[in-house]
């Protein structure tokens, strides 16, 4: 047993060695950020990818006409140094920054955006985010193959400026432009390595990639790391204090947590739920929690009986104690939802309410005439401990307050998506994160026959209001219309909002200027390391 004793003495000797610098310490001195970035990115082609990890990487490598302002959710000049909006709100003229360059030294030109937007709108590419550009005149028709001539789409170049004509005045158009799907690609490179509409294009490979962002691509080892370093040709380099970033694809949140604790990364992008309270007590300065532009809700299949009865849906909603879910199950400072769109005290803040009222619920449940001996309804969710806990709590609440039996079904992600899309569900858990900071990104989803509606719900007045809102220049008027639509939604409840998401993650105290914002986006050139 002597060797065992020696071994543990050795370990004891090694422990508490505070002189040894961690990887985070060493990299901070070199100005390099180490980011836990979730899953391995499926790619870095802004017109093909759809995920958050991809977005975080593209934020370093490419830049759109404008940059997301992390302090106020607005926009800052990007490739476009300034822009002029016509009085009717339909035409945007972007004046380009002459210093905006690609990593090969060429200037970023308006023609490059025309090419890029033609690319994402080409149906052959199969881009899933092409509808982000549907606000542009004829963009939807071109994408759906109804018109073949791209010159009819509202994008043109005039005197070295990009002129964009919209279908309707869209005050949040600049916000849309902060989304990576609208960012440019280098046309010659795309053509050289596969062509405009090839999904198997090799232009994103390390040696081929030409970007225009604050960083350039250095290496990409699949399932290991993607490294970028400062782009010396970037126009905004004077304020960029970061020399490089290493994105680590760590999809296991426990591994990420362990790596953060052992000083291996500056940012762990998730925190295991069971550890949040402990972090709050023990490492409060490293635990970051803030509102996120997302809603967790239950989607109701209104094509099915008894869920097609509004009183039945109201009874379901009234018998859910959201406070209990947030405080006892989630424990992550989430906010109870009173509307479908997450409220923002400084802009869109709907006055809708979703109360917990079991007595009223019971009355409405009786009115619906539902026989509790019928075959139980099913709550569908994708396999996850978190979803399961919420579903179990709601199952219990419905049983207790309404006497309603529901069965819980968990299936893997792809099965869940397929069943939802095909309408093979009664009630399903759902979540939505806004793509840009405007209520439209939520409310438009529930318009009749929208792909993401999935509830079968249709309301002509709702559709009309949203249609009217699209042509409003005045933000106040638009928000009034949104609120009217929101009221219809909350009154009819094809979706039952449960809570507003919060982002919870771990951030090293060495990272400075980090902004807590609802889109959880921090352009890296505004950060610094200490």
């Amino acid at each position, binding site marked *: 047993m002597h060797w065992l004793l020696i071994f543990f003495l050795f370990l004891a000797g090694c422990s508490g060695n505070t002189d040894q610098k961690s990887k985070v310490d060493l990299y901070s001195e070199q100005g390099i950020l180490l980011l836990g970035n979730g899953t391995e990115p499926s790619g870095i082609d802004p017109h093909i990818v759809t995920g958050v990890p991809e977005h975080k990487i593209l934020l370093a490598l490419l830049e759109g006409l404008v940059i997301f302002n992390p302090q106020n959710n607005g926009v800052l000049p990007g490739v476009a140094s300034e822009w002029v909006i016509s009085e009717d709100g339909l035409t945007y003229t972007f004046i380009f920054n002459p210093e905006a360059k690609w990593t090969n030294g060429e200037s970023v030109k308006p023609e490059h955006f025309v090419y890029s937007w033609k690319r994402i709108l080409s149906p052959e590419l199969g881009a899933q985010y092409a509808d982000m550009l549907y606000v542009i005149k004829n963009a939807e028709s071109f994408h759906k193959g109804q018109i073949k001539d791209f010159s009819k789409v509202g994008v043109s170049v005039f005197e070295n400026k990009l002129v964009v004509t919209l279908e309707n005045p869209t005050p949040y158009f600049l916000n849309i432009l902060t989304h990576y799907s609208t960012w440019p690609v280098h046309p010659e490179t795309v053509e050289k390595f596969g062509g405009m509409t090839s999904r198997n294009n090799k*232009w994103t*490979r390390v040696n081929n990639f030409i970007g225009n962002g604050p960083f350039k691509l250095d290496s990409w080892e699949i399932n290991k790391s993607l490294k970028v370093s400062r782009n010396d040709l970037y126009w905004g380099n004077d304020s960029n204090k970061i020399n490089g970033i290493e994105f680590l694809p760590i999809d296991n949140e426990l591994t990420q947590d*362990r790596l953060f604790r052992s000083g*291996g990364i500056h940012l762990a992008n998730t925190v295991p739920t069971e550890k949040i309270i402990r972090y709050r007590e023990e490492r409060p300065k490293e635990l970051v929690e803030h509102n996120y532009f997302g809603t967790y809700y239950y989607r109701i299949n209104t094509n099915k009986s008894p869920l097609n009865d509004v009183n039945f849906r109201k009874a379901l909603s009234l018998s859910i104690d959201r406070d209990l879910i947030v405080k006892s199950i989630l424990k992550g400072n989430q906010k109870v939802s009173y509307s479908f769109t997450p409220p923002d005290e400084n802009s869109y803040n709907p006055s809708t309410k979703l109360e917990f009222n079991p007595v009223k619920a019971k009355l409405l449940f009786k009115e619906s005439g539902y026989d509790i001996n019928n075959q139980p309804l099913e709550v569908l969710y994708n396999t996850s401990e978190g979803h399961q806990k919420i579903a179990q709590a709601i199952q219990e609440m419905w049983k207790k307050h309404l006497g309603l039996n529901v069965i819980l079904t968990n299936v893997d*992600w792809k099965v869940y998506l397929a069943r939802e899309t095909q309408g093979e569900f009664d009630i399903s858990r759902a979540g939505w994160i806004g793509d840009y900071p405007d209520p439209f990104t939520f409310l438009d989803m529930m318009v009749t026959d929208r*792909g993401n509606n999935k509830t079968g719900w249709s309301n002509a007045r709702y559709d009309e209001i949203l249609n009217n809102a699209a042509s409003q220049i005045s933000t106040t008027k638009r928000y009034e219309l949104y609120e009217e639509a929101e009221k219809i939604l909350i009154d009819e409840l094809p979706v039952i909002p449960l809570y507003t998401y919060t982002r919870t993650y771990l951030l090293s105290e060495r990272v400075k200027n980090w902004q807590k914002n609802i889109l959880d986006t921090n352009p890296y050139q505004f950060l610094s390391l200490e």
Partner: protein
Amino acid sequence: MIQLILKRLFTYIPVLLVVVIITFLMIHAAPGGPFDAERVASPEIIEKLNEAYNLDKPIHVQIYNYLFNAIQGDFGPSFKYPGRTVTELIMSGLPTTIELAIYSILFAIFLGVISGLVASLNPGKILDIVPMSISLLGICIPSIILGPVLVLIFGIWYEVLPVYGWGDNPGDKILPTITLGTAYAAIFARLTRGGMLEILGQDYIRTARAKGLSEIRIVIVHALRGGILPVISFLGPAIAGLLAGSFVVETIFQINGVGRFYVQAAFNRDYTMILGTSILFTFMTLTFVLISDIMASFLNPTLRDSGGLE
């Protein structure tokens, strides 16, 4: 022997063919497709995507096309990682997975055979009971539990070993190797003990003892050769199991091996990737079983003479 090996190699073809066809049918029968996403794409887009990946053709045509291309070494593009081929993705992770498997198997053999030997030489004593009890524990504790426990002790409490990566930091191969190898070390220990006890009871060992040979010589020269036969026979399935099961360890330690693709591909409905990795693991399982059979034949003349390779 060569004839027998060739004969075994020939059986690869129908086995792989059956694996491809069954896998193909199963993945197409599974609900959910590669292009299902939270943000629903329009039917027109889905149609274009199906066209781009040849999913619009009848299933038998798809299988034929796949096999035709696969024979020429083209396993198709990945659905999940546009712009990358399945071969390229597999090759990016295969060397690491093989390296991890080799280290783990060496660790398992070293620890397992020594423990088994010690136990077999001291039957019923403390040196038998303790290693065998520990080995039982090793078999019972899955790597999904062992990995995080080792990380907690050596990575977080004592900060002596890295908890992430493979080949990036000194010592980062130790914990994954131990995590993956422990269960097999435990099995090898029990197999060695069993094999050795059987051999040590044989007449020729008693003769060797009667001749006055030293115990070490008896064990190393005479007994071990026969005693570790069960270990050799198990080596093939063990390596195949290590390779296929490496995804857990690769996930815990974020190692860029091919095991992670194997599992992720199924969840992502990345059809071509599922097929590519299934073919790879089938091929490797067949090959390692063949290799261990050849090794066993060399160590045991009875097997060789009776055509035990079959």
